[in-house]
């Protein structure tokens, strides 16, 4: 069981408020990913959940019981610390066993679980080393292992894969995903990796400066970000945001106009808008293609082409000085300084009002 409710949680360090009125419901067995800029309060939130820290105000419930004042040891959660926090005087094996010994698990079962976790995290060879003798990634895997061997009500994972190489990260991610499928344990997961967030999460919580900006399923966040912040934060490279003016606004569609003769009709409920007001048009770099003949198009000069292998990120500046990112499939041979034309479809754009809020979908 691991149904968690946060009500009006606040946390301040001295005068500095780092969490403001956090409200969040996490269903039993749900996989929730917390994302947000560095320093926005993700780790702090996790510490409050774990019981290591107490909120300055608000209530935390687990499975309907108020646990706000319950100590960490009694909440029955497991945590992977961003700083690892391995016991430096114990071998890897002892690090893994410690939590199990504390709940008087039989020796044989402990050994079994450790073997299993070690296999899964590829640390079997290091079981008898001390943390001081491990590389950064190895330590991180031990830290994950320490949580995994337990059978907690919920997992709290703070950037658990940040120091792993791509391959290991993918396989570990898969293991965590499999673990979740198998155990159906609630997981709360902090990450900076978009791919992890997108692939693992049942729901993603986007935070900024101690507040929750949006909560939703990964593709919903990607496809319909609620505001400019989420739009910019979810999706890499970040969405292009073009300043536009409302030209016409109706309940079914809105037409916006921008620099360089740009004029686009977007399907959205613009009934609350006044023509002539400012707005922002968002287009994801992946939704821009080279060539002409889309709902919108423009020419630009390439500043930089970043070849990633399967795709190439084009950094360009439009003729009226707007910086544009576009992701082009394959390896493009355009060079910096070349002219290039881009096109995009109106259906892939996102429109935000002057306050940065996404326009509601067209009325039906």
């Amino acid at each position, binding site marked *: 069981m691991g149904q968690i409710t946060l009500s009006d949680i606040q946390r301040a360090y001295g005068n500095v408020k780092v969490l403001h009125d956090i409200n969040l419901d996490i269903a039993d067995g749900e996989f929730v990913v917390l994302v947000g800029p560095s320093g926005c309060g993700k780790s702090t939130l996790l510490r409050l959940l774990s019981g290591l820290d107490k909120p300055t105000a608000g209530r935390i419930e687990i499975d309907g019981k108020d646990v706000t004042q319950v100590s960490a040891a009694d909440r029955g959660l497991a945590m992977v610390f*961003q700083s690892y*926090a391995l016991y*430096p005087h114990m071998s890897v094996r002892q690090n893994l066993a410690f939590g199990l010994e504390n709940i008087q698990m039989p020796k044989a079962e402990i050994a079994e679980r450790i073997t299993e976790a070690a296999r899964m995290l590829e640390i079997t060879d290091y079981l008898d080393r001390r943390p001081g003798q491990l590389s950064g990634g190895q330590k991180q895997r031990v830290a994950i292992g320490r949580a995994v061997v337990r059978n907690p009500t919920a997992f709290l994972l703070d950037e658990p894969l940040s120091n792993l190489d791509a391959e290991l990260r993918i396989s570990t991610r898969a293991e965590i995903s499999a673990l979740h499928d198998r155990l159906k344990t609630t997981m709360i997961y902090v990450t900076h990796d978009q791919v992890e967030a997108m692939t693992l999460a049942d729901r993603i919580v986007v935070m900024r400066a101690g507040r929750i900006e949006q909560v939703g399923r990964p593709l919903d966040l990607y496809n319909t970000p609620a505001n400019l912040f989420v739009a910019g934060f979810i999706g890499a490279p970040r969405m292009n945001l073009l300043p536009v003016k409302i030209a016409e606004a109706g309940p079914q569609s809105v037409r916006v106009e921008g620099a360089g003769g740009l004029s686009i009709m977007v399907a959205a409920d613009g009934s609350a808008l006044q023509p002539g007001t400012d707005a922002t048009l968002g287009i994801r770099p992946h939704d821009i293609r080279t060539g002409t003949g889309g709902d919108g198009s423009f020419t630009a000069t390439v500043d930089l082409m970043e070849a990633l292998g399967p795709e190439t990120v084009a950094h360009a500046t439009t003729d009226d000085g707007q910086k544009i990112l576009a992701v082009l499939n394959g390896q493009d041979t355009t060079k910096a300084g070349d002219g290039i034309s881009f096109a995009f479809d109106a259906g892939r754009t996102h429109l935000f009002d002057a306050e940065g809020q996404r326009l509601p979908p067209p009325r039906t």
Partner: protein
Amino acid sequence: MSRVAEFLTRRRGGSGWDWTDIFTWVWLIAGIFVMFGPAVWLVLSSFKTPAALAEFPPTVLPMATEQVMVEGYDNPLELYSVSMPDGSEQVLAQVRRVGTIAQMVDPDAPDEIVKVNIAERTPQRRVAFATENYVVPLEQNDFLLYLRNSVFVTVMATIITLLTNSMAAFALSKYRFRGRDGVMLLIVATLMVPLSVILVPLYSVVNAVGLFDSLWGVILPTVATPTGVFLLRQYMLTIPDELLDAARMDHASEWQIYWRIILPLAAPALAVLAIFSIVWRWNDFLWPLVVLSRKELYTLQVGLNTYAGELNVQWHYILAMTVVTMIPVVLVFVFLQRYITAGIAGSGLK
């Protein structure tokens, strides 16, 4: 030879002798002389006879005048090297001395007595260890009994000291509670008063709780050392709190945190305190002296210190017994000091 050269030229960082290397070795060598020298001299002195101890100027090695058996004399005679009137040096044995004139014989020609002014003769001396300084006290005293008492007092006191002090230090360094600073202050403040000053009040307390003339009366008053709490607490401050957090997430009780996380990580400080506690309890003299009145309960220090009289102190015995009682603590030190090694608390963190 090359090993020695390598040993001597080994440097930090590997390249070139910088001034710190030179300074280090100057300091260490000076340490040998200044710190160790007197101690070595003490050990050597403990093998000197009372007369040699009182001698000015002192010799480094214990010396005794050489003796020979000379035909015609029942007792061995002492050998002197004498500068003869003709300017030559000769080794003669002294038969007797009357005033400033010594009567001497040539050991090879024992019949002829030579009269020599005592200013002309210097004793022939060689190194001789007065082992009786050790043998006599050890035979006279119930050495084994005292040893047993001392070991009991030292071990019990040290265990209790380490345990109670580390517990208190844990609470004072890792919990925030009201009055924490007050308790800390109280503890440090009581470091102030020397035992000799509160001897009588302490005696009345010990007497009142019925511990007079019992080894526990020696042990208990010493174990709550403010020093230990203070020392451990300050060290524990350097242990990262994250490790405690991790243990709490691992469902560890506070006791387990103390026991399995804090204690091992504070090992260097515990080793220091253990060394101190052992040295102190082992060498405690004044307090056991006051509390213990029956010989069966004497600790080594009390038992072996009977050589300090009113008007005379038999230093030769005291030095010898100092050396004897020092040996176990030196061994303990050598054993425990290796725990004062690199703190590892940080290596579990990112």
